């Protein structure tokens, strides 16, 4: 029989001293094996016969049962693992990486490892929707979007929409989720296949030197002037100009690791929701996502803060803002400092320091606008806290703001 070369075995993916995957040991007749693997094969064949719990169907190992039930392959040899797009679900129980990941994330033992293994398989690795994480990632994306946006809108009710988009992207955007996945210790397989460890992130990589696939490239917006309302209603929760590609559509395309890591984190949230219920998902979200610190005051980018502030004061019925010099030093030197305050009547709305009078006035107006937009109520109950809750006495209606000022 032909000997499979080392590169084909993908042995660089496995630790050198670890025993070979017992499913791969079934193919040992085609490889020069060590006696070690025969013992592994015998051992695992006995543990593989896990009793069928009510309603739970565990996939039986390829080498023990599939030969009897397979209709498509005429020979009795099971398909070599390298030909499979992703590992067998039963390999999840034997993967130390998955056990470690589950305990690292403090997930209860009743969360099945097979579900965790499924969340690590991107659609580009395995096109079959029953084996990849596409549907779970859609559910997880909606969950994350809901929890993040309600938290932001309840805690910062006056935030302008572009800042809301930026903040949501900072919490649950593609880069943030990719960072979170790497913080959780997710490693990626070099090439997807049935022989890789179930605990590795599996996706089809972009060939070195190739560009991004068509589906992920930046597309021209449908109109030159994409309004904020259009972004809210038509595209995604981050305010992109175009809707992102559907996870199911990425079945044959190579993807960057960021996309695969993002799909994993979303799929994990989705899997936690269906298996463990929403209270646990809310606690998980609070622990892993809301605990990340974001300074929202750095997300603002004003173009004409003085004009915005003047329209805001007119809308709210305050007196027109007036900029007054509070103090200054070094006016004729190389580094002057002017401290300017913006006043509405007798109240100072904001103060800013700059090296020119215009700069100081601009900073003061920007500070005044931030003071308005970053208003934060003291006690906040988010809408999802009332889901399934019998005691509604803790509910406090949230402040609904009329919107940012339009100039």
């Amino acid at each position, binding site marked *: 029989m032909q000997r499979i070369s080392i590169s084909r075995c993908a042995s660089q993916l496995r630790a050198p001293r670890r025993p070979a995957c017992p499913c791969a040991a079934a193919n040992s007749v085609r490889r020069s094996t060590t006696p070690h693997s025969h013992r592994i094969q015998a051992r695992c064949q006995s543990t593989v016969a896990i009793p069928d719990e009510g309603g739970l169907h565990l996939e039986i190992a390829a080498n023990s049962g599939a030969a009897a039930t397979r209709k498509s392959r005429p020979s009795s040899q099971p398909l070599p693992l390298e030909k499979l797009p992703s590992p067998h679900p039963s390999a999840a129980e034997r993967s130390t990486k998955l056990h470690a990941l589950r305990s690292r994330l403090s997930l209860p033992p009743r969360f099945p490892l097979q579900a965790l293994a499924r969340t690590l398989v991107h659609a580009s690795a395995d096109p079959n929707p029953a084996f990849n994480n596409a549907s779970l990632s859609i559910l997880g994306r909606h969950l994350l979007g809901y929890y993040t946006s309600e938290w932001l809108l309840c805690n910062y009710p006056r935030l302008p929409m572009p800042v809301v988009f930026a903040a949501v992207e900072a919490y649950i955007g593609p880069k943030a989720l990719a960072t979170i996945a790497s913080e959780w210790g997710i490693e990626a397989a070099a090439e997807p296949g049935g022989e890789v460890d179930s605990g590795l992130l599996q996706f089809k990589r972009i060939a070195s030197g190739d560009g991004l696939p068509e589906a992920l490239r930046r597309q021209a917006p449908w109109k030159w002037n994409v309004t904020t309302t259009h972004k809210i209603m038509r595209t995604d929760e981050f305010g992109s100009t175009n809707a992102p590609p559907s996870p199911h559509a990425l079945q044959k395309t190579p993807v960057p690791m960021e996309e695969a890591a993002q799909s994993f984190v979303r799929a994990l949230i989705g899997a936690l929701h269906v298996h463990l219920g929403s209270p646990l998902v809310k606690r998980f979200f609070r622990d892993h996502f809301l605990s990340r610190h974001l300074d929202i005051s750095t997300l603002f980018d004003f173009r004409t803060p003085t004009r915005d502030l003047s329209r805001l004061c007119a809308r709210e019925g305050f007196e027109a803002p007036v900029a007054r010099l509070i103090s200054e030093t070094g006016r004729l030197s190389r580094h002057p400092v002017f401290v300017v305050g913006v006043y509405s009547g007798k109240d100072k709305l904001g103060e800013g320091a700059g090296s020119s009078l215009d700069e100081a006035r601009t900073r003061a107006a920007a500070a005044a606008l931030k003071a308005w937009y970053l208003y934060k109520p003291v006690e906040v109950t988010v809408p999802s806290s009332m889901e399934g809750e019998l005691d509604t006495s803790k509910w406090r209606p949230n402040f609904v703001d*009329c919107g940012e000022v339009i100039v």
Partner: protein
Amino acid sequence: MASRRPIRSLISTTASSLRPAQPSKCSLVRTAACAFATISPSRGPEYDTEAADRPRWQQTPPKMMAPFRIRPLAKGGVFKVNEDPRKLDDAYIRMLGPGGDKVLGDEVKWLAITHKSFDHGRRGFNDRLAYLGRRIVELQTSQALISSPQENQWPRDSKGIPANDEFGRKPYLHPALNGLQGLTDEAEGLVLSKTRLSPIAERYGLDKVTRWKPRRADDLQGSGIESVLMTSLYAIVGAVALERGGEVANKVVQDKILAPLGFTFSAES
């Protein structure tokens, strides 16, 4: 504040010379919670009690109004919007059921159906509410798609054992994972398309009470009324969520939006 003022005037202590020439109604229109500063701002001598008592939804802020209109009138005619609180209450009762007009507060009721195009956004608009409402509706739609009966379950043979796929594998099947194959972006896009949602909004009478400004008053379809109605629908959901909580908002989505689209919900969901 005009940007062309000479720098010297910045230092001036008298503010009166810097205030732009405006109608002398220094009215104070404030809602309950817009405290910008702890002490009350000083009111000008010409304090107009009438303008101060009117709520925000009813009038455009007097300081933002020019004394007369310079631009030509819009092509297609003037579009009249609803000003009557009773018609709005009727629409809410039609949508949210009996007592629907008491679910939201007064200002929020009007804010939820006010599009950004109305009055240049001077009376507030429902963008933020629509953002939250869309998140809620999308999540409820995903859950409804998962729990709706599926026609393409994993095939099983006569004994109920799942069949193999082309690689000879069986997936991990668990009752919790049932129905996931129905959840795709295409399915969601079909459910939540504006051609399906705008008739539902029209059934509730939202097209009569939504405050917006069409591009042409004689061609509402071409001006995008479907999109505006969808925004209003989502914004009402978002407003209910912020004022009444997620439980009530989820029920509104299930009963008033998804049920007319064909989903059925059992009693305990």
